[in-house]
């Protein structure tokens, strides 16, 4: 998996089979993020495979 969080590439991404597992492994809340797999927004149960490009976007901010 090639992983980025808020546009920053993560060199050693945590092991995760699904979006929900990935969010949890990153210490983030499902209530605060959107996740794209290979350019498509994906639900929490979506599977992640080794070749996928995964983008995690934190979308809840103050200001």
């Amino acid at each position: 998996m090639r992983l980025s969080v808020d546009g920053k590439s993560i060199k050693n991404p945590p092991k995760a089979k699904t979006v929900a597992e990935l969010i949890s492994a990153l210490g983030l809340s499902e209530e605060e993020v959107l996740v794209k797999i290979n350019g498509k927004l994906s639900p929490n149960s979506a599977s992640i495979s080794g070749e996928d490009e995964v983008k995690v976007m934190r979308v809840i901010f103050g200001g």
Partner: protein
Amino acid sequence: MESDKQSSGLCAKCGKPAAITLRYMPADLCQSHFVRLFEARVKRTVRQHRMLKKGERIAVGLSGGKDSCVMLHMLHKISQSLPIELHAITIDEGIEGYRSRTLEIAKEQCSRLGVPLTVVSFREEFQSTLDGLLEAKGAARACTYCGVMRRHLLNKYARELGADKIAIGHNADDVAQTVMMNLMRNEPERLGRFGLTSGAVDDEAFVKRIKPLFTTPERDVAAYAVMKGIQIEFAECPYAKNAFRQYIRKMLNEIEGKYPGTKLRVVRAFLEQSRLMLDGARYRIEKAGSFAKIGRCKSCGEPSSGKTCSLCLLLERG
């Protein structure tokens, strides 16, 4: 995981691959059905609470952040079937490294939708940027200063534009946070004045406020922006970390993670009780007599319940 059980990966409406999990429903939805749900909910909120009338001029508070950009997009969509006139107002507080980017986005959004934009800056109005002001005052009360100053300018310029209403991009998360903050600070009258529309006292100098995203969760606003290709900047105000709201936001999101739907239940509970609270606030204002009625600030002439308005008190004017 609990969320896996709630997420099938398929749209609950059509069975196609889903794009998003909405744990508060709970359901997964494809992009098309999410967009339909989102737009229908905003339109229903606007309709049910009679926020817009044919022929009105609406000043849109446009920070350039995701909430106000999506609100502008939705109001523009509504204006295709309900003739209303939109005019955006952007307040440039002068926050280095934050506001300049969102200001550009605000200009781009207005240009794309053909909505006129007025940009007002703290520097021109108050002879200081927010950064400059907070150097002297300290950043601990940044949100108090910024909020009072922004509200003052939005009201003043909306009134000068002849606007019937000001649209504010408060979403359901903001509402749930505000309700909890007011409860924790024991400020029932402030809570009574808060709502989908303003306020406890009518005064011609106050332009009424409407909040079309009142019942829409913040994450949904972001998802809609991403799906519709609305340009947004996911960035946090550098002063937000100092705010009490930040703790409340974190707490509510933790509870939401464990008990999905909590934030929307807070909003619904507030809506059910807000009429009683508003009546209470009006009663207390009436009982207090002329002292609590809206007069004019002796320093700046803007509407104020005291001799000096909140802005002039904060800026130590008058």
